[in-house]
């Protein structure tokens, strides 16, 4: 997939992806999130740090994520996890995006009219 197209498509759905990943795992740190996305999409989709951290910070500021810092291998590591509101919001946003993608699919798979 073209990288700039990929980035454009990713922009609107990045926060939902983060919420979904954290719904699945108790807590994750920045690098781990980028790697998980890469792994799940077999390298087709990459999240840049410049997009990831602002998205994480925004979700945290909105009260959907909470953080804890732990020292790992001599350095501090910041872990993100969902707050109670974050859990509710994650379910709702994932459902919304899923419904949107289904509708988008219907349009994209339009059969040529005879």
């Amino acid at each position: 997939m073209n990288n700039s197209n990929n980035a454009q498509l990713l922009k609107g759905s990045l926060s939902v992806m983060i919420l979904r990943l954290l719904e699945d795992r108790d807590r994750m740190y920045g690098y781990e999130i980028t790697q998980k996305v890469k792994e799940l999409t077999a390298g087709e989709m990459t999240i840049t740090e410049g997009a990831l951290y602002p998205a994480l910070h925004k979700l945290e500021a909105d009260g959907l994520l909470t953080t804890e810092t732990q020292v790992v291998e001599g350095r501090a590591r910041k872990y993100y996890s969902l707050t109670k509101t974050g859990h509710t919001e994650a379910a709702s946003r994932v459902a919304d995006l899923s419904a949107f993608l289904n509708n988008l699919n219907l349009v994209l798979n339009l059969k040529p009219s005879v």
Partner: protein
Amino acid sequence: MALTTIQLKTLRYDLQELAHIDYHDVLTELLDHYATLTEQKMETGLSFEEASRWAWAELGSGKGLQAIQADFVRNIRQQIRRQHMGVLKSYFRWPTIVLTALVGVLVYLVVPMLSDRTLTIGLVGVTLVPLAALLRGYWYGDHHRENVDKIVWKYVYRVGVLPVNVFQIMVNANFFSDSPASARVFLQTHTSVVTMLSLLLLIYAASFIQLYQQKYVYKHV
């Protein structure tokens, strides 16, 4: 492959000196990311220097890292502004407004009974109280705190210190520069209004004290 303390210091140096990452919270997070990327590349056989160079580029180099920090600062500023509006709204309720008006009426009735000297001292005192409240913030904000608190202090300076000082100059200049006769008229006819305005200003200054005490999401040092 865990990095050594010296290698971590090198990466920290890059972030601080080449990308000018000043905020501890951002630095901590980016250092971990930078170190993890470097370690991952070192596992493929690259030396520390080569791996860190690759990781640096992967992070977006100085420009990309600065953009992350700029976003962090913008985010915190928004939170402070939102928080401050919330604090101010919580003050401006009917009991506060009625109480302020009653104090104004009381001052209006008491003023004719006081001497000019007492009034002048009292008025200067009242107008200086908000500044004293802000000075406390200045002391803690500029000398004792760092990181997110610096952003709070800059916000307070911009929206607090300047308006308070301008107000004081306006109030005090009237009777410091005028003749004693006009100063007397000013003090006796306008003291109640000035006192009410000072009380409002005091509430405004108090909102900053409350703001200093707020916890912001990135504050975990």
